[in-house]
């Protein structure tokens, strides 16, 4: 099922089932019965916790495999020499590395027949001569019902990628929204030098370094423009859980970087539906873990 534009669409979602209390005695008997029994079904690897796996199963998905991708691109020597305007070599190195990693991860998910990849952990490493991007997440496939039919209501033309947790994915999908792709934008801008006279004249004053403030604004504008463009290109209508880094580059303190990334999302249901919330008061204390040091 698609919306005719090649994008993913949704239908009805949940088969409502009554909540039931856990019978630990019965569960223990099931565990005893399974002791020594042979396993069935196809195996998988997953970086998700069991809670997350159960949550995803409730919306018709199950883990398939942990997938990973890496891309590293070059930044020529001299790119960080104090100058004016953008450090275009670094901008390009980021966008190429991010795009290459994203494409590799999607290809890996498609190879194993996954619907998408959730809880993608994104690692960005900038050094003077290179930009390294590593992505790692759990590819998920549609779970089948007793008739062998897919229980996941959305048909994606290509696997989706998102850095949302399983919990966030479930909350999002219950509201009618779905992740489309990972998007990112970065900008590296040289802060202009202060004049010698201004620097000397301000030595004994508490003053704003307007050159750095303005550079940060400029870097942010450029990066946000790029991420907005990326969202439109992947077919999303919004961005969730955006992470950003807005700091001077450690090895080039005169360059301000603004790097932003997150998950592009789109409303696939007819209307947004706000989930009904129940208030709970947890009665369990914080779990105290056993440590080997207590054996001393």
């Amino acid at each position, binding site marked *: 099922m698609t919306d005719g534009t090649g994008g993913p669409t949704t239908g009805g979602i*949940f*088969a*409502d089932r*009554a*909540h*039931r209390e856990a019978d*630990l*005695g019965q*569960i*223990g*008997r*099931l*565990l*005893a*019965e399974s*002791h*020594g*029994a*042979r*396993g069935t079904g*196809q*195996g*998988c*690897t*997953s*970086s*998700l*916790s*069991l*809670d997350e*796996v159960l949550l995803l*199963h*409730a919306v018709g998905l199950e*883990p398939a495999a*942990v997938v*990973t991708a*890496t891309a590293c*691109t*070059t*930044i*020529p*020597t001299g790119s960080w020499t104090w100058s004016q305007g953008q450090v275009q070599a*670094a901008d390009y*190195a980021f966008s*190429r590395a991010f795009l290459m990693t994203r494409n590799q991860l999607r290809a890996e998910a498609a190879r194993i027949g996954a619907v998408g990849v959730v809880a993608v952990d994104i690692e960005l490493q900038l050094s003077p*001569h*290179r930009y390294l991007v*590593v992505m790692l997440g759990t590819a998920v496939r549609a*779970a089948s*019902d007793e008739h062998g039919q897919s229980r996941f209501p959305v048909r994606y033309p290509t696997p989706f990628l998102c850095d949302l947790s399983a919990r966030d994915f479930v909350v999002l999908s*219950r509201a009618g929204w779905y992740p489309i792709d990972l998007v990112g934008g970065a900008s590296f801008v040289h802060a202009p030098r202060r004049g010698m006279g201004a620097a000397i004249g301000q030595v004994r004053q508490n003053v704003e370094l307007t050159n750095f403030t303005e550079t940060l604004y400029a870097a942010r504008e450029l990066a946000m423009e790029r991420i907005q463009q990326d969202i439109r290109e992947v077919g999303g209508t919004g961005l969730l859980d955006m992470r950003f880094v807005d700091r001077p580059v450690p090895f080039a303190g005169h360059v301000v970087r603004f790097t932003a990334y997150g998950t592009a999302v789109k409303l696939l249901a007819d209307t947004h539906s706000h989930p*009904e*919330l*129940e*208030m*709970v*008061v*947890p009665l369990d204390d914080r779990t105290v873990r*056993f440590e*080997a040091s207590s054996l001393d």
Partner: protein
Amino acid sequence: MATGTEAAGAFDSGLTTPDFAACLSMGLQPVGLVQGFFCGQLSSWSNYQAAVVTNYPCAFGWRGGQDHPPPGWLGTATGLDDAWSTAFATAHQRLAEEATARGAHGVVGVRVEMSHPTNDRSTEVHLFGTAVRLAGAGAGPLWTTRIAGHKLAKLVEAGYAPVSVLYARCTAVMYEGCYMEHWGPNMVGAGSPLEPIQDVHNLARSRALQQAWHQAGGASLYDVELGAHEVEGSTTYVTCQILGSLVRRVRPTLPLAAPVTTVGLGD
């Protein structure tokens, strides 16, 4: 190397109170705290015992020469990986032997600690958990799991049974020869793929995941903790380690109830 220390009529355990209560309700009777240790020394050659995966060609098409550096290569540090994998497997086996000697069916709440206790050339693996007997269980191999209590109950309710704790790793090595220099930042334009660096990162992660698949043998691996560490120099090492819980499906998963969204008032 089983060293049972069970006192008559008493048990010891590493379970928290909620986990202990849930285990009792499930018919899991704690037998005692069991442990598996391994301390070893890494061979002085372990960093140099590498299995070459790819020999990079000379970037300039040369076949050798007095002033020409050797072309780079990509491989895995088999010596290092074998040492740590053996250390884990031995400690796990000792944990299992101790539990079996006490008549347990499984070990719950297994914790794993790995370190270099004395220097970089030493290995120490310490596993400990609570051995349990299962009321009404027949014969079968001993299982181990990192979870206990209600989390174990959820696992069983979801149609799975625990198998074992799993550890896999791969240390990928990339030696920079002229190939790396060629692909260095001054030989190609901005944004060009730096393939040897990509290769060493991809190799470490993909081989560690492959090993995990191989060890799983058709079972499923959950709660995967994957950590990667890079040491960069003329030889770049990327180590990827995986720790997870191996489970097998024993019943089909039933569609679960739609999750209820709540707002916690505990803070």
